[in-house]
C-alpha cells in the first residue's frame, strides 16, 4: 500500500457531489485524486441527497484515482456530522475538512473515523484527513493542525481566505504569498503534503500555467483543479524535463561512485556536489518515476 503521506498528488479535481453525470466520468481524466464535494458546490436543500449519492458511488464504482470527500464543516454547519455518518462507511481514502481553524475540529472528525474503522474491522489509517486553511485564524493554528497523526496534506482555500483578508485575487498572487509560504513551512515541518488552491478562470490557461509554475517552485506538491483540461497542464508542469532527469541521474551516479570508492569531495561538470544536491536529485528521479517516466531511458542524455 502506498504511504498516504507521500502518495503522488499533483492534481486533486473537484467533482460536484450531486451530479451523477460528472461523477460517472470523473475517473477518466487521470487526476491523481478526485474530490467529491458536498460542501460549497451543493445547495443547502440538496445536502442530504448529495451525501447519499457520493456514498453510493464510492461503494459501487472502483475508482483508479484516490477518493476524497469534502464534507461540510463539522461544527460551524448543521451538516458536517451527518455527512460523516453517511460517507465514512463508504470508505473514501480521505476526508477533506474545509475552513479548519482549530485542532479540536480535526480531533472531532478523527474520532468519528476511528469509530467507523473499528466497527468495520478496517486497519487504523484506512481513512485519513486533508484540511483546508481558509482563514487567518486557521493559518495561525496551521502548525498544530498539520501535526495531527491522520493529517496527510494541507490545502489552501484562497477564496475564503482573501475575503477574510479584505482584498482580492491579483495576477501576481502577492495577496497569497504569505499564506502559501506559511502553510508550506508547516507542511514540511510536519512531513505532510501541501496542495495549492484552485485557479477558477478555466479559459486563462496562460495565467494557470504561471500560477502552477510559481506554486511548484515554492515547493507545493500539487494543485486543486476544477476542470479536466487543467489536469494535463499540471501533470506536465510537475514532470521533470529530460534534461533535469539526466542531470539528476548523473549526480546520483557520481554520488554512488564516490560512496563505493571512498572519494571525499565530489564534482559533476565542474560543480561541487554535496548532501542537499543529492537529495534534490533523488527527488527529481522519484517525481519522474511517479509520473510514469522511464527514468533509465534518460540516462543516455546525461
Amino acid at each position, binding site marked *: 500500500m502506498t504511504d498516504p503521506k507521500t502518495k503522488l498528488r499533483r492534481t486533486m479535481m473537484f467533482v460536484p457531489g450531486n451530479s451523477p*453525470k460528472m461523477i460517472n466520468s470523473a475517473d477518466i481524466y487521470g487526476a491523481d485524486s478526485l474530490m467529491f464535494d458536498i460542501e460549497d458546490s451543493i445547495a443547502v436543500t440538496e445536502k442530504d*441527497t448529495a451525501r447519499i*449519492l457520493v456514498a*453510493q*458511488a464510492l461503494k*459501487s464504482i472502483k475508482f483508479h484515482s484516490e477518493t476524497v470527500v469534502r464534507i461540510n464543516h463539522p461544527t460551524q454547519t448543521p451538516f458536517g456530522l451527518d455527512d460523516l455518518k453517511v460517507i465514512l462507511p463508504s470508505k473514501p481514502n480521505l476526508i477533506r475538512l474545509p475552513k479548519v481553524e482549530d485542532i479540536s475540529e480535526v480531533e472531532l472528525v478523527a474520532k468519528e473515523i476511528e469509530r467507523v474503522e473499528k466497527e468495520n474491522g478496517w486497519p487504523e489509517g484506512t481513512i485519513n484527513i486533508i484540511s483546508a486553511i481558509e482563514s487567518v485564524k486557521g493559518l495561525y493554528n496551521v502548525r498544530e493542525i498539520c501535526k495531527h497523526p491522520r493529517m496527510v496534506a494541507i490545502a489552501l482555500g484562497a477564496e475564503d481566505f482573501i475575503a477574510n483578508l479584505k482584498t482580492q485575487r491579483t495576477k501576481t498572487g502577492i495577496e497569497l504569498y504569505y499564506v502559501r509560504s506559511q502553510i508550506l513551512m508547516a507542511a514540511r515541518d510536519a512531513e505532510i503534503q501541501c496542495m495549492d488552491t484552485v485557479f477558477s478562470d478555466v479559459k486563462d490557461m496562460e495565467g494557470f500555467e504561471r500560477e502552477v509554475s510559481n506554486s511548484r517552485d515554492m515547493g507545493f506538491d500539487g494543485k486543486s483543479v476544477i476542470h479536466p483540461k487543467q489536469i494535463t497542464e499540471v501533470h506536465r508542469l510537475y514532470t521533470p524535463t529530460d534534461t533535469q532527469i539526466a542531470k539528476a541521474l548523473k549526480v546520483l551516479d557520481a554520488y554512488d561512485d564516490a560512496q563505493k570508492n571512498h572519494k571525499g569531495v565530489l564534482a559533476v561538470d565542474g560543480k561541487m556536489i554535496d548532501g542537499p544536491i543529492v537529495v534534490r536529485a533523488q527527488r527529481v528521479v522519484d517525481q519522474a518515476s511517479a509520473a510514469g517516466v522511464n527514468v533509465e531511458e534518460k540516462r543516455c542524455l546525461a
Partner: protein
Amino acid sequence: MQEKMGKSLKQTATAGFEEKNDILITVSPLNAGENTVDLTSTVLHQYGRQIKKLIIDTVNDAGFKSVKINAIDKGAWDYTIKARVLGALERGMKA
C-alpha cells in the same frame, strides 16, 4: 408468528433530477399493499425490468412497505438509482 412490521412513509417526497444520467424519484405512502413502481425511462425497453427490480429491492431492503414509487429515468447508473430512492425515502420519513 407475528408479521414483521415495515416502515411507513409520513409524506410524499422526491429526490434527484430529470437530467442526463440522473433519475427523479417520487415516493408516496399507500394505505396498504405491496410497494409498486411506475417507471418512465429513456432505456425502458432495454433495462426497464432491471431498473424496476432495483427500485423495489432498494425500498424493500430499506424496510418500507406500502410505498408507491414514481420514477423518471434519464439513463441513471445503478448507484444513482439506489441513492435517489434512499434519498426520497429519507425525505419522506421527515414529518
